[in-house]
């Protein structure tokens, strides 16, 4: 269990969150190594964003995962499920030891998030590009029912190539969905992507490298801000601003979070080669040292 789990949500400092995120990254690698399945790069880049949501920003109670007044969370880039499960487990939705059942068959922890199986999962995802629409629907229903909660959606920067994303981007401001926040995990890499130059076949260029995302979202009627997605001070400030806009701005918010794919471990950070893959025992040792040092992790 995480140190400080008894600490109240507001009291968790950026340093506390960083420690939790390191442990979460360890769970990602350890789970993938054990089950020989799942993704690594995407969960690691989005880890700080998810830890800040579940341990500080969101109004949720793991003891009552279906509380109708809870904030909603959608991991639209569903292939990052292991990172999501790690955060949920550390936060107390289910035992950390259950991570070991990932992909073993008859498990609550499926290859992609399943709202019918896993406590803390509000929307099933896996086919990219659908989460923002679902979030808009939730936010719209909340408005109609006069409910005062926030809906948070994490998107991949490759994922937002899907046309359906832009259908929602166009329509959400029309409904005044200031209770909806999209967080783009801008790690600059997808699974294969584009060669950086016509002759260079191996270095991948940024999926959204040619797009001025802030201008585009603003143009469609969103509040947009760009932050360092690994700096908890910046993350928390952006989250607080997005929440403060609820009921006030009439505009949905987007947080464009610059991150690094595979963040936190020397051999996974910044490379598309670890989009997925299974670490060897030696690599797992290195990751343990880099993420946790000598700290023990108790399931």
């Amino acid at each position, binding site marked *: 269990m995480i140190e400080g789990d008894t600490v109240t949500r507001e009291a968790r400092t950026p340093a506390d969150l960083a420690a939790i995120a390191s442990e979460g990254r360890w769970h990602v690698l350890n789970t993938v190594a054990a089950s020989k399945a799942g993704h690594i790069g995407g969960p690691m880049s989005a880890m700080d964003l998810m830890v800040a949501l579940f341990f500080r920003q969101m109004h949720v109670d793991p003891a009552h995962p279906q509380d109708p007044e809870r904030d909603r969370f959608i991991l639209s880039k569903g292939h990052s499920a292991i990172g999501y499960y790690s955060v949920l487990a550390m936060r107390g939705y289910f035992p950390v030891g259950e991570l070991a059942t990932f992909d*073993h*068959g008859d*498990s609550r922890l499926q*290859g992609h998030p399943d709202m019918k199986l896993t406590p803390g999962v509000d929307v099933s995802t896996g*086919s990219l590009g659908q989460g923002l629409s679902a979030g808009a629907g939730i936010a719209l229903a909340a408005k109609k029912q006069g409910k005062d909660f926030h809906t948070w959606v994490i998107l991949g920067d490759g994922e937002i190539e899907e046309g359906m994303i832009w259908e929602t981007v166009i329509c959400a401001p029309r409904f005044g969905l200031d209770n909806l926040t999209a967080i783009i995990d801008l790690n600059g890499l997808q699974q294969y992507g584009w060669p950086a130059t016509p002759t260079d*076949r191996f270095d991948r260029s940024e999926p959204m490298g040619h797009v001025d995302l802030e201008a585009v979202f603003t143009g469609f009627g969103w509040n947009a801000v760009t932050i360092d997605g690994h700096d908890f001070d910046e993350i928390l400030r952006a989250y607080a601003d997005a929440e403060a806009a609820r009921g006030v701005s009439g505009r949905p918010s987007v947080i464009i979070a610059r991150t690094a794919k595979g963040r936190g471990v020397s051999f996974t950070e910044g490379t598309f080669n670890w989009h997925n893959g299974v670490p060897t025992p030696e690599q797992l040792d290195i990751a343990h040292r880099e993420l946790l040092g000598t700290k023990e992790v108790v399931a």
Partner: protein
Amino acid sequence: MKSQRAVWGDTLTELGETDKRIVIVDGDLATSTMAVTFAKAHPERFVEAGIAEQNMVGMAFGMSTLGYRPWLSSFGVFLTNRALDQVRMLVSQTKAPVRLAAAYTGLLNGSAGKTHQDIEDFSIMRAMPNMTILAPADAVEAEAMIRWAAEYDGPLYLRLARDAVADVFGADYVYEHGKPISLREGTDAVVVSTGVQTSRTVEAVQALADDGVSVRHIHVPTLKPLDEHALWQHLDGMSRVFTVEEHSVIGGLGDVVSGVLSAQGAGARQTRIGLADGWSESAPNDFLLDKYGLSPARVAASVAAGLQA
């Protein structure tokens, strides 16, 4: 023993040396579908369309109108389901030579689970006018079909499995478009299978033979167009018919065979072995095959039980 996706990447790379009409339009999955082999050899004819399957189909169609013969590179489920309207509107209706290279089809997709399981593809694609549907049993047949497809001038759906299966055919295999293939003679019942499930069924039929059950085994590599008369000749006279497919029991090979039987007014009793009308899960291959009734042992058991019933 090679995986069908590796065969696809290798064969297209080779054909692409001389056939400059071949292009691959990828949906950010080149390292999974093995389009990466082609991308490295022929970067000028590899098009990355992004994680945008509808865009992929539209772009492939557009390129086809200027003489290209594009292959789409994605998981089957995103081609058959996500881009269904685009396939229907732009490809099926116009008979454009756009090839859907459906990777990771069926139940087994490297633990991605039910969101990625492409188990309704036969059903969906069979209803699509002008669509040719190819489901190779192994790597050998996959290669033969890809070579055949390179010369074919219309839309087609090629069902490729992620993981290698035991070879069914020898190096001398020749693909005959639309023809069912007899793999084994038998007297007690006939088992009809398709795709890589044929490879597992070969094992099941051998296990039955070891137990004294004599089963005729027919492989259907072409779901559409199918020489139904030829298939009927393999079924004629058999009172017990089993169909086996790594697909929903609804709308796939089981329906094809039952259509042939009923058209002939045959009195045969048919059992469909396939995925029940329900959702599955993510897990290792062996677990899934066993739990969902498609392992050789489970297929053999289903046939044996069916013969007792």
